């Protein structure tokens, strides 16, 4: 097969070309980076994708509007709820369906729990990538509690498929509110522990401060979103800009930083976790009574037209673009995945740095490769 990995070689200019990935522990999946090196300095980075391209967009064209949602759980599996929610919101937009308040609240709480577990996993893996193993165990300890809540209410730990057009699939488990509050109080007590072990650590600061700089203009031009863009001072939180579900009912801050380096991106995510906790706390006791799902027809048919929905996942802006020709399955679906655009800025950020910095940059962009490849 052509177009696959060539062996490492030296260019005429004396630059050493190495392959990082597709099976490399720090690429968080199967990303393949071709790196041109002068000594230890990175001259050029070229991402090669497609090692987990599962043709989700093609597959969705033959699935019904109820069924295509499941594939998106496997796309960005760390934010399965939010991906499902984006799809459900797009279909609801096409049907002009009003979702019951109860469903909106449940969706928002689950989405923020998802964000919390995703950031926790990112924090643990950033530690691993930078040579600290302990954060991984700390993060997974707390993450398991959230997974248990998910399992109790949704029936699955990771790929939940809980959001359906019109609301959520089931009502919440009777224990849901109690257990969520328990977990929140537990996690709130741990933030200081996280800071103690990582944030103030000299080795960590040296490896992240001033590394992988991304300017505001470049961030916008490369379409970078999410915490990565907010660390460069770009205001891009869809929850604030175009509130969906119950985000207009809650008070929270959009965390911005002008640092633009790995440390700024780290700090943004650490503070976002606290914001997520605060959002859930505002909603958890006020879930309104009533229906959890609006009535929909058995076979959903969207009217002819194009529907676009933007949501904020832990990695940035996810866009779902559905083109309908009036049939029972979408004519064309495009997922504007956050990781794809964030990755496109990686060669710029890594250029001129050391090869060790490349690992730090990759881990602070928080890439999920199936989300990029789809």
């Amino acid at each position, binding site marked *: 097969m052509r177009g696959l990995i060539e062996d490492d070689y030296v260019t005429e200019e004396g630059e050493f070309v190495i392959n990082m990935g597709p099976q*490399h522990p720090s690429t968080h999946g*199967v990303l393949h980076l071709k790196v041109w090196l002068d000594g230890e300095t990175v001259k050029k980075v070229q991402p090669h994708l497609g090692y987990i391209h599962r043709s989700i967009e093609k597959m969705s064209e033959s699935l019904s509007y109820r069924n295509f949602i499941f594939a998106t759980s496997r796309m960005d599996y760390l934010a399965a709820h939010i991906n499902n929610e984006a799809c459900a919101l797009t279909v609801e937009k096409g049907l002009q369906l009003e979702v019951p308040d109860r469903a909106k609240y449940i969706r928002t709480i689950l989405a923020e729990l998802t964000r919390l577990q995703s950031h926790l996993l990112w924090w643990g893996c950033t530690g691993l990538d930078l040579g600290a193993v302990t954060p991984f*165990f700390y993060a*997974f300890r707390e993450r398991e509690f959230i997974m248990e809540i998910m399992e109790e209410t949704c029936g699955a730990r990771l790929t939940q498929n809980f959001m359906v057009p019109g609301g959520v699939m089931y009502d919440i488990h009777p224990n849901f509110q109690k257990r969520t509050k328990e977990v929140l109080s537990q996690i709130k007590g741990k933030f200081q522990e996280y800071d103690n072990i990582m944030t103030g650590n000299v080795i960590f600061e040296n490896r992240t401060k001033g590394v992988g700089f991304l300017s505001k203009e470049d961030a916008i031009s490369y379409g970078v979103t999410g915490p990565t863009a907010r660390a460069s001072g770009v205001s891009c939180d869809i929850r604030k800009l175009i509130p969906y579900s119950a985000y207009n009912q809650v008070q929270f801050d959009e965390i911005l930083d002008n640092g633009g380096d790995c440390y700024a991106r780290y700090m943004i995510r650490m503070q976002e976790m606290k914001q997520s906790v605060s959002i859930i706390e505002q909603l958890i006791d006020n879930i309104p009574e009533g229906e959890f799902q609006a009535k929909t027809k058995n076979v959903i048919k969207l009217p002819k037209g194009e529907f676009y929905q933007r949501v904020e996942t832990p990695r940035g802006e996810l866009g779902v673009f559905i083109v309908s020709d009036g049939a029972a399955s979408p004519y064309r679906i495009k997922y504007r995945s956050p990781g794809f655009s964030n990755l496109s800025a990686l060669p710029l950020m890594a250029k001129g740095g050391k090869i060790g910095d490349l690992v730090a940059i990759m881990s602070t962009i928080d890439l999920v490769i199936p989300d990029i490849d789809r």
Partner: protein
Amino acid sequence: MEINKSMEGPMTFPGQVHETADGGILVTKLDDVINWARSNSLWPLVFGTSCCAIEMMSAAGAKHDWSRFGFEVARATPRQADLIIVAGTIVMKMAPVLKRLYDQMPEPKYVIAMGACTISGGPFFYNTYSVVKGVDHVIPVDVYIPGCPPRPEALLHSMITLQEKIKHEQYFKKKIEDVR
């Protein structure tokens, strides 16, 4: 003919220790004792492509803790691994890479196919153009785990199943026969 009590436990030592005045004499089969050692320190190769990789990480994490069964030395290089856990979908572009990694592993080597995608393509079986419909088209598989993704407990169960398989292997006997 008393079996040494200290050897008893969940992983019973294969063989009998006959107490003598200055220690003891062990009577066992070479295959058994080597299999006992091998099965209790299987080093997996980290090969996560998608969702199942996260559950594999959970299995390594604080709650499920696969080091209880001797799996904690997860290697990033195939040359140091006994076992490859294929966690996630394999697509056409990845298949040659997986084959190459498998070929680079030293014998004896084992494969766990984790999740529906690696068994048959799973949710990506129909109407996809790039997914390999089952990892056993590429490399031989010893243990299959169903689920999308399987729970960490299921992964632990598959690893214990693999240990059982290794314990009953007659690897060295077979090797000697091959040489003859």
